[in-house]
């Protein structure tokens, strides 16, 4: 076993385990507590990076099938198996990530039974599902070879041609539909990316980048397990002598062939690069056709992203493949293919996330949990890939990696701890050790209650009246003991009797004239929402006499503008309807935010302290704005006088 793949496996296991912890937290605590997705940005990392970009990078399964089975390019037959494996794992991990993304994961099977034939996603779901099945059928002969069920494998192998054709049609269907999906948001998606050519651009770019992905995987496999066919004999790299291998030509530029496999790989890269070139041409023509250049020229940040996407995803790989020197070097080809894959991911992120941010009016940075699941799923797919490569003949008929004798049980004495370790060198030992270290770390990093923005909820208790007229109120709202005895009637009389209410009380519930503070400011430490959406839907429906099966669905337009994201920011102002029924005075303060009530502590302090500060000057009582004027229990010991001591004893 090469130590290179061992180190890689350790890293992959660590990432996959972190992803596992994150996945458990997501299932346990829900999307809201673990992700930074919102109503304004509902499509996050999992959907766009893992699903939309993930399946796009797994297209090699059908493109290589097309080259070999339809165009009869027999030289690429060697790549059919790895391409199918790539497609199988790519689609598998996309679906796994999507399972975390949907709100009710246990209902993932609903589209199988409940058909919504108007939705592009419905088509995508079915195509992905069927194509995953196709890759499974295509892959099973190579897996079953290793087991006793060889005969089933051979029988399935006979179906290969038909299955490949089905796979090609399914793939071309859903890769374009993934583009069509974004056509339903003509206003929201930024003009640089929104084009009626999206379906076409999606499938062409996916085919190019998918092939590049296969090139990358072939080179990585060679680097890990079997360098000779790609990197050439070990000596050629060291002393720079051109190695003449019988049957393999040295190219006209005088650059040595690295290995026999490189010829085939560069041919594949040329096909991929021409597809990428087609994408580039289409994009340029499309932007020119729609006159979206203006957006590019205005220096919006989207223009930079668009440029990066073109540069990394299309221009750089095309140039690297076009230059013979880099095309024939495994490193040059590796950089070209990695950059094409990264560029495709950036493109899909642009179309799926960044293109919407300007319209949504908010920004989206994926949470740590989102990254962990996203990377963890891919790491798990990587481990599965290494497993298949080592145990089935994927790249070569004889490429099943021999079992190392060192894998058997060994016993070791650890001198520092005086513990006998059995099985120290085996895989189980390494993986479990990684788990012991990584899982607790992931736990404390991702556990939602530990994350900084999580303020504990401390419900507010209503004020207690100390007499029957509630002339004096006792505020111990968090029951922590730093209470305030508030002479309500006293304050009212001093400030101007009935005309003074609005000096402290700013707003009441509709048709109420004396709503207590704690009705809206319901938490000591954090703001609480006071707008009841469901109640408003119902009220609008009844008032406007809307009818139909889902009459509340017709109420949106009464508050939200058409053609825009439905957020609280652009909804109708509360005071448009509540003109008089919530106000204590005739001149309402229209700047007030009625969707959230600030924390109770904040509300009280902001109401009392400024006024007390003013009065402290006025009545020459400098202590009037000090904490202990109201919170008598905080009085410093040297200031305690008669009446306050009595208060403390109570």
């Amino acid at each position, binding site marked *: 076993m090469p130590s290179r793949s061992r180190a890689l496996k350790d890293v992959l296991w660590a990432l996959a385990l972190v992803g596992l912890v994150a996945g458990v937290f997501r299932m346990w605590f829900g999307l809201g507590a673990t992700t930074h997705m919102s109503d304004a940005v509902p499509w996050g990392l999992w959907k766009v990076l893992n699903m939309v970009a993930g399946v796009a990078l797994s297209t090699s399964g059908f493109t290589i099938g097309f080259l070999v089975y339809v165009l009869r390019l027999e030289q690429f037959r060697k790549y059919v198996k790895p391409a199918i494996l790539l497609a199988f794992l790519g689609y598998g991990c996309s679906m796994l990530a999507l399972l975390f993304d949907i709100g009710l994961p246990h209902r993932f099977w609903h589209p199988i039974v409940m058909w919504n034939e108007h939705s592009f996603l419905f088509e995508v779901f079915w195509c992905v599902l069927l194509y995953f099945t196709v890759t499974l059928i295509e892959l099973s002969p190579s897996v079953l070879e290793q087991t006793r069920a060889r005969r089933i494998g051979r029988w399935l192998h006979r179906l290969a041609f038909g299955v490949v054709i089905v796979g090609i049609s399914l793939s071309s269907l859903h890769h374009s539909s993934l583009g069509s999906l974004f056509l339903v948001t003509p206003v929201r998606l930024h003009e640089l990316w929104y084009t009626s050519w999206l379906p076409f651009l999606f499938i062409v770019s996916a085919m190019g980048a998918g092939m590049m992905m296969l090139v990358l995987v072939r080179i990585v496999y060679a680097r890990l397990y079997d360098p000779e066919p790609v990197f050439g004999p070990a000596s050629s790299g060291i002393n720079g002598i051109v190695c003449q291998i019988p049957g393999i030509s040295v190219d006209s530029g005088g650059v040595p062939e690295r290995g026999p496999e490189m010829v085939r790989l560069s041919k594949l890269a040329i096909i991929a690069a021409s597809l990428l070139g087609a994408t580039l041409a289409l994009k340029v023509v499309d932007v020119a056709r729609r006159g979206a250049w203006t957006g590019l020229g205005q220096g919006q940040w989207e223009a930079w992203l668009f440029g990066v996407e073109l540069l990394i995803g299309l221009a750089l790989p095309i140039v690297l493949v076009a230059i013979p020197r880099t095309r024939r070097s495994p490193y040059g080809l590796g950089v070209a293919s990695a950059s094409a894959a990264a560029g495709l991911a950036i493109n899909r992120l642009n179309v799926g996330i960044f293109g919407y941010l300007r319209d949504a009016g908010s920004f989206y940075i994926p949470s740590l949990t989102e990254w962990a699941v996203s990377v963890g799923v891919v790491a798990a797919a990587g481990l599965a890939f290494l497993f298949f490569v080592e145990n089935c003949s994927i790249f070569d008929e004889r490429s099943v990696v021999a079992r190392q004798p060192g894998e*058997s*049980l060994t*016993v070791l*004495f650890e*001198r*520092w*701890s*005086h*513990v*006998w*370790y*059995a*099985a120290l060198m085996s895989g*189980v*030992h390494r993986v*479990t*050790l990684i*788990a*012991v*270290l990584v*899982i*607790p*770390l992931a*736990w*404390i990093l991702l*556990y939602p209650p*530990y994350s900084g923005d999580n303020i504990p909820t401390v419900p507010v208790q209503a004020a207690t009246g100390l007499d029957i007229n509630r002339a004096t109120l006792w505020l111990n709202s968090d029951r922590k003991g730093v209470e305030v005895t508030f002479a309500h009637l006293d304050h009212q009389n001093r400030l101007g009797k009935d005309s003074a209410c609005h000096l402290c009380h700013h707003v009441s519930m509709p048709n109420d004239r004396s709503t207590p503070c704690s009705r809206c400011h319901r938490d000591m430490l954090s703001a609480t929402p006071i707008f009841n959406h469901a109640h408003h839907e119902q009220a609008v429906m009844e008032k406007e006499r809307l009818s139909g099966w889902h009459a509340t669905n017709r109420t949106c337009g009464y508050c939200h503008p058409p053609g825009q994201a439905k957020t609280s920011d652009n909804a109708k102002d509360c005071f448009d309807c509540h003109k008089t029924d919530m106000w204590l005075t005739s001149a309402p303060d229209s700047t007030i935010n009625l969707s959230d009530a600030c924390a109770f502590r904040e509300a009280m302090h902001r109401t009392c302290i400024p006024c007390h500060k003013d009065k402290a000057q006025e009545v020459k009582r400098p202590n009037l704005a000090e904490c202990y004027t109201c919170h008598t229990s905080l009085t410093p010991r040297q200031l305690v006088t008669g009446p306050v001591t009595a208060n403390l004893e109570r």
Partner: protein
Amino acid sequence: MSVHDWIDFAKGPLFAFTFLVMVLGLLRHVIIQVSSLITGKGRRLRSAPWRRIIADALSWVIPIRHMTRGTVIFSVVSFLFHIGIILVPVLLIDHIVMWEEQLGIDLPAIGRGLADVLTLFTIAAILVLLGFRIFGSRQRSMSSRIDYLLLVMILLPFASGYAAGHANVNPLSWEAMMLTHLLSAEVLFVLVPFTKLAHIVLFFFDRISGLHWQLRPGAGDKVAHALFGEEAKV
């Protein structure tokens, strides 16, 4: 960060981290032991003399049958030490509150008086065991640095926990003692799966697997030498 924030951190995330390292580390020992038993012994496990193995293991739990003349005090003290070290950390009322808050497990508590007595017993037992290892020539010849270190590491949370709970014996502030208590206990949690403290679970395996956690290469000869003099060999 104030000292109270540090205490909250030590009680919250750091506790979760170290406790998980301990639990998973011990679980790992179980997995490795079981898997190595299966690969190493395989079907022979089925015909193993289970009844004798279990009886033998249990007889070491209460070490009365294995006492010889020279080891009586050592055995009794170490037995008492184990009672305190298991009961107090798990069943003290302050800890039960923490189990319930952090893990949602509800356990019956032992009384505060009993806990105090057990804690003092344990502290005394640790000191006696340390004394044996330092002054007894037999024990010293079998000990290495880690054995002393582990005893001190176990002493720390017990002593600091007792001091934090009893202001009259506390030389420092409650906060300082509490933080010492939390941090030393958490270091101990991490040490458990990677030192011979792993016998919390490995104890149940050493009789079966034949690999004894206490023994180091050549230890048999050293033990024989300590017990029976120069010429003895295992």
